[in-house]
């Protein structure tokens, strides 16, 4: 990862892009998941349709979205409708794949996006996070869920402080079904160092694919339980120039990948508009 050809965020976007299939309908949050979706459309999934929780179905991606309700999320959409309708369509099983971020994940793929207690409690936590948003709903109802988060200390934990979004719950056989959940649970956890999947029997997360230049011990040290390794551990290929180009084209002002630093490096609104219009082809 010391390689300066690409950033951690870019690598995560590229690895996530590979989880989409052509003609799928994807429920994708804002930020890197969206960049992954746009990247997939450039390669193996040109007919991927993206749905936003604000009520936008199948937009044309001329510009980047900064939030799910950005008017850009509606650009040239096939259908513009309501939030409650797209969540209900999710509950009907119309969406094939969902992508989710999280602050914490546990070994059964349960996610926390609500609060880091830090010895305190729900009403007064150490860190208040955004809450479920649509995350719980995606984890509850979508067939296949891809989780994206950085592999950093205290993020991969034995038990999440607050279980916002269901993975395989306590990992017991049929736990999701018993709880009344419809989706089949998390399919992959994409990080900046490796990709994890879940054992079909034990429902435990294991190391499936390691990224170039990363070693297993480095990963194990960051995971809060005794991590199992796939019998045939895969190594991810280096991102190609074409992939990196596609990821960067999907975020031309670097405001998604680059964050506050990128915002500050822009000369101002005029430059932002110029970049946006130029890249959109409009």
């Amino acid at each position, binding site marked *: 990862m010391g390689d300066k050809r690409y950033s951690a965020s870019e690598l995560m976007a590229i690895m996530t892009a590979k989880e989409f299939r052509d003609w799928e309908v994807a429920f994708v949050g*804002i*930020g890197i998941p969206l960049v992954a979706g746009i990247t997939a459309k450039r390669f193996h999934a040109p007919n991927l349709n993206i749905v936003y*929780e*604000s*009520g936008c179905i199948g937009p044309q991606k001329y*510009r980047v979205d*900064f*939030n*799910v*309700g*950005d*008017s*850009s*999320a*509606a*650009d040239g959409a096939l259908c*513009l*409708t*309501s*939030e*409650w309708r797209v*969540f209900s369509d*999710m*509950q009907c099983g119309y969406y094939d794949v969902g992508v989710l971020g999280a602050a914490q994940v546990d070994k059964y793929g349960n996610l926390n996006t*609500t609060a880091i207690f830090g010895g305190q409690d*729900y*009403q*007064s*936590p150490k860190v*208040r*996070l*955004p*809450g*479920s*948003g*649509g*995350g*719980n*709903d995606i984890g*509850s*109802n979508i067939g296949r869920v891809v989780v994206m988060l950085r592999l950093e200390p205290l993020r991969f934990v034995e038990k999440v402080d607050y*279980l*916002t*979004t*269901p993975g395989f719950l306590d990992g017991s056989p049929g736990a999701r079904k018993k*709880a*009344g*959940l*419809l989706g089949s649970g998390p399919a992959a956890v994409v990080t900046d160092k490796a990709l994890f999947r879940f054992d079909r029997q034990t429902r435990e997360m294991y190391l499936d694919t390691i990224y170039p230049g990363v070693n297993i011990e480095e990963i194990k040290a960051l995971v809060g339980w005794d991590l199992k390794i796939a019998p045939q551990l895969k190594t991810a290929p280096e991102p190609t120039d074409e992939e990196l180009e596609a990821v960067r084209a999907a975020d031309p002002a670097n405001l*998604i990948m680059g*964050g*506050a630093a990128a915002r500050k490096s822009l000369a*101002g*609104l005029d430059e*932002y*508009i110029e970049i*946006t*219009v130029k890249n*959109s082809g*409009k």
Partner: protein
Amino acid sequence: MTDRNNANKQMSLKDAVRKYVTDGCSITFGGFIGRDCVAAAHEIIRQGIKNLTVIDDSKTDVMDLLVGAGAVKRWEGAYLGYGAIGLAPNIRRSVEKGVPLKIELEDWSNAGISMRFLAGSLNVPFMPTRSMLGTDIVKYNQRIKLIEDPYEGATVALVPAAHPDVAVIHVQRADVMGNAQVWGFTGNDENKARAARHTIITCEEIVSTEEIRRRGNMTLIPFYCVDAVVQVPYGCHPQSCYGYYAYDVLFCGEYHESAKDRDNFLRWLDRYVLGAADHLAYCEKVGWDRLQKLMGLERRFNRIPG
């Protein structure tokens, strides 16, 4: 229930907020991060209204402002984050440190709270949902009831109808009778307008009733759900308004940076809200040229017919 229907429900933002948004009332806002009711939130802060219960889905920008200004007592909702920009600074300060005061939290998922608005709009007491099952949302929120479906036996969750005292909803076009037309995504707005006891429509443009009749399919909220109609151009800035102006990501980023520090936030609030007599003065401070540029950007992508 809305007031009696009549030919002209138009009023100023000041009057509409004074009449319907009172200390201690419960409130919900239309939009979904885009098409947010920013101008109305500013006016609520200017009028010094306190102890609000905000019942909402994902309304970070408005909530962060209101919480930072000390207007909120309680929140029932799903999401308080800034999308690609980060966490919500005033909300974190309130929840983690009680500054300026501590808000009570009741967490829902977006689908869960959406069903509360749907139930409210149907005037049924609850809705079943398959969200939130098996999680700590249910553990900490006693109003979600798990039942066995009497038809097929599986576990489903029930959520109670939401009936906020007031809904404020920003739309692109409305007539003075109260018919409100929306382009782009619609969020939970049609349901919020019906679930609430009173509904204030703010809009970019007032149009004639004849114009409304030309596109009846675009009327998301009919007159009988509406108590007040207020024209507030650029009423969502720095959020986007589909067909009218794009998201001002840089302005929003600057707000976010300021809000990380309490004193800086208070200076921001003084400059843009308390130091501005009304929304027109806010637009002046933001800069009309800036607003025009955001409109120009949006209209390259989305244009509303007619």
